[in-house]
């Protein structure tokens, strides 16, 4: 389930990751935000790489499926992910 809010123990918010870390999208907290991310091809199960943070810490540039997306920190808080080592 995508909207499963009882997240697995290992899930954390995308906004907490550091530069260069990789993760797999687990679910979205905000429904509208989820639709927007789905439209852009960022599905649960997709691998996200944190490319870089803007100099002031926000927004964040992430790589998903060959494209680079730019999202604000408060938007990244709506994405739950599982970090891959």
């Amino acid at each position: 389930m995508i909207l499963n809010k009882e997240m697995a123990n290992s899930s954390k918010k995308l906004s907490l990751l550091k530069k260069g870390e990789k993760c797999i999208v687990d679910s979205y907290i905000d429904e509208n935000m989820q639709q927007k991310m789905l439209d852009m091809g960022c599905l649960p199960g997709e691998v996200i790489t944190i490319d870089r943070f803007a100099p002031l810490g926000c927004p964040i540039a992430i790589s998903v499926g060959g494209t680079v997306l730019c999202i604000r920190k408060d938007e990244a808080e709506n994405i739950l992910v599982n970090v891959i080592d």
Partner: protein
Amino acid sequence: MLNSNKKIKVALIGNPNIGKSTLFNLLTGLHQKIANFPGVTVEKKTGSSTIFNSATGDANYLEIIDLPGTYSLYPNSPDERIPFEILCDPNNEDHPDIVVILADGTNLKRSLFLASQVIDLKIPSLLALNMMDLVQAQGIKINADELERRIGIRVCPIIARKCIGIEELKQALINDLPVPTTYVYDTTLIKPTLLAGICKELNLKSNYAALQIANHINSLEHFQISKEQQATLKNLFFGIEYDENKIQSFESLERYKSIQQIIESCVRLPHEKKVSFSTRIDKLLVHRIWGYAIFICILFVIFQSIFSLAEFPMNFIDETFTGFINIVRDFLPSGVLNDLIVKGVLAGIGGIIIFVPQIAMLFMFIAVLEDTGYMARVSFLMDKLMRNFGLNGRSVIPLMSGVACAVPAIMSTRTISSWKERIVTILVIPLMSCSARLPVFTLLISLIIPTNYIGVFNLQGLVLMSLYLIGFLAALLASIVISGLIKSKHKSYFIMEIPVYRMPRWSNILYSILDKVKIFLLDAGKIIIAISIVLWFLSSRGPGEKFEKVNQEISQLSPDKTDAQKRLHLESLKLEYSYAGHLGHLLEPIIKPLGFDWKIGIALVTSFAAREVFVGTMTTIYGVGSDKNLTVKEKMRIEKDVLTGKPRYSVAVGWSLMLFYAFAMQCMSTLAVVRRETGSWKWPVIQFLYLSGLAYFTSLIVYQILK
């Protein structure tokens, strides 16, 4: 067979940044029109194209509409509502006969998401598979024939930038594209009875169209569906549990599953990925120090160009046009009509075309920055900083351009995707000190500020700089206040794609400049000419006998005056007795607390045309009693206050007047362009009122303290 006399309506749809405008320009050339979609400020680009059938030689006429770039048919913003409404409503006036779906070969999965939605609407369509050069460079293999078989519509691989594959695409367009027979994802299984009911009621061919209607059942106001029909449709939901958000995301995920199967059957990705060229450049261009340093340099170049480089063509236009006006004035028989044409209409037109160099130059830079992909990086760098003021990362360039001229600056806010942040940017741009204020400032500074030096700094220069700074700070403060006051209709997301760097396409840039110049000349131009005629009437006509008798008064002047002196005197008196003169006197009680008299009142009225007119009006007013050959500055300096005997233009009056011009919206062109860009008179009126209020109260406080 398609009827070759009838125009075929073609809609062009695709994700942002994948070459949609390039393809549109290739198909239509210069046969383009721009307007706004009714009710929203989304640009509607249409164009026509004639395609000759390569087999029969018959001509086919196409009318092509360029839909705003979107990632799906689920609308998130006003931009995205347009493709949704046009494609999902068969009765929409822009509903196409054929859809050209532009896809990015390097990101086929995401492109097919939008493509499959269009296909499932059962509109005859064609997939233009773009960026085939990048596909090859990245080592991706796409089996186009297999893709065609799987999605059930014609696939044309193209490289729009290099104009490869365009002829094949054109021929495919005119050769009877069939209605897609299969669904990429069949939505029948979702609420089958409800969808069947909607299909039957609206006579729809596609159950996906029915699903789209069902998902937006409460926001169908722009659909050609009658109130009764909408009520009938709502009744169909009776007893059915329907959560459109859940259904939409379920449907999206299922759709992606179907797409994944298609991708697996016809796309082979390379095993390893190279570190891309863009990633390497970005190490420098969005670097915490170098990124900003480079951005400041770019801003500096833009600013210098529209501020000083544009001056040459502007002077040229000014001189040529003045020459032209003089010829017309001498050619036409003198009288009211001559006066109206020369001082009303032609002066208005001159005031419009003078902006063209600045607009062209600013949009050349913006188009290059957009086309190369740098603009997205500007957003990335500046977003956090600007958000503190309720603005957007993309507000920086419009704001800085406002220092040269608010007109092109306001037009350039279209790159700001969030409606609210765009409105805030538009509302505060006129606070940035534009170049038209410079003549007013220099005249007043030279009157009230001594030419002293503080250390190495010229005091007059410091005052001028402080006026620019005050404008800039006022703009930032105003944005904080305004963004707190405006309520956004729907939550907007910042999420955007950062495209790879590419060389700019010069033809795209040229089209972009032409578009902007055309919009300004035609749309804003109408309003500017109208206001110009009104201002001409106010300052050249007057009520009552006094105005009529001006000529007699002049003839009674002492005979030792030269003709030139007499003419100056005549013009000055005419202005005083004109409607504008009366308005100046009427305004006097209101502006007296600011330290202004009726003469300044007249200048306030006439300089609504443009701020620099202030200087010209003052020259005319002070043309009276020119016993000695003094300049307007000298006359203003020696003028005494009748009551106190002190100089009329004291420090208090000077500052009060300068601050008034720093804040007030004394510019009809800005007003006209805000009307054009926001699509209604609501925002220009609000802007005019708040800026005039701000100017009035600042001047009031400053004058009362300083005097």
